[in-house]
């Protein structure tokens, strides 16, 4: 047997050590992308998020025009941070529907009174079931849904002013 071969186990050990150390030292909390992009929106019919208003159903997204589906909550801080950007999108003619996660009508109403209401319809998801069906793992998240109800794009985290062009671009792509 060649002498150099004796070093092979040590080399393999060091290789494993490097792999484990990089795994340990790299920051956790990686962003989990939904695998539902390109697939139809799951079937759902949510009760209304606000009193005396309509709920939100899958059929609302199959009316020929691309829309945004914003997953938010009144208790979520970054959701308040993205509110001005959503208002700007709504004012430029983008239709935004929302799913409110683990929320109450009065809390949603307070939130909208404070930060503005960019939404056409709000569905209330008190058990995060639609969030799970969408492959979403936190709030806020925003999905671009095309006119046939197919999920085209997912934005994770709050929409910042610099993200607005990409949202418009994705909406145009979904047309």
């Amino acid at each position, binding site marked *: 047997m060649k002498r150099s071969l004796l070093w092979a186990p040590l080399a393999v050990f060091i290789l494993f050590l490097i792999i484990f150390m990089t795994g340990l030292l790299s920051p956790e*909390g990686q962003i989990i992308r939904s695998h539902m992009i390109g697939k139809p929106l799951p079937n759902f019919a949510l009760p209304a998020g606000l009193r005396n208003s309509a709920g939100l159903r899958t059929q609302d997204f199959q009316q020929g025009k691309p829309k945004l589906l914003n997953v938010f909550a009144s208790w979520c801080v970054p959701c308040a941070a993205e509110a001005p950007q959503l208002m700007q999108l709504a004012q430029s003619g983008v239709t935004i529907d929302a799913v409110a996660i*683990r929320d109450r009508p009065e809390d949603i109403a307070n939130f909208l009174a404070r930060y503005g209401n960019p939404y056409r319809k709000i569905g209330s998801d008190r058990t995060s079931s639609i969030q799970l069906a969408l492959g979403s793992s*936190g709030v806020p998240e925003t999905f671009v849904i095309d006119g046939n109800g197919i999920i085209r794009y997912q934005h994770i985290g709050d929409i910042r002013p610099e993200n607005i062009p990409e949202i418009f671009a994705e909406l145009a792509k979904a047309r």
Partner: protein
Amino acid sequence: MPFLRTQQSHSPQRASFARGNWGIAAMIGLMILSAPALVRADSDLPPAPLANSQLPDPKQEAKAEALMETIRCLVCQGQSIADSDAELAGDMRAMVRTRIAAGESPEHIRSWLVARYGRWVSYKPPVDAMTAPLWIAPLLLLVVGAWLARGLFKRRRN
């Protein structure tokens, strides 16, 4: 954060800090790095009924629990949904129990989740072309080890 700010304002302490306590520095560094990208505060809604209470049928509960232990929590990513206190994990446990009670098989629920979050969400690696090396490599290494050992023992006898 206030703790970190005090550390920075005492420069004499910082000098000894740099010399002696690399372990602590590394720990603080890790804490900063591990701050979650998505801040998820908690809602004030109570947990879903089946998030923290068992199913009446012990057989179904055992099935649900076995599945929950192998599904990764989406919020606190090192834990299973059985271990996690996150609200989303509670909602996932409630979903698992509801579906098991309705007669759905645990593997069907797992593949439903994998279709949404990718393989990452499952702690149970499937056997297929991509993960085959994980299963074959140990056997292969054993065979190679046995072969090497055999060579060594032979030489010694001669």
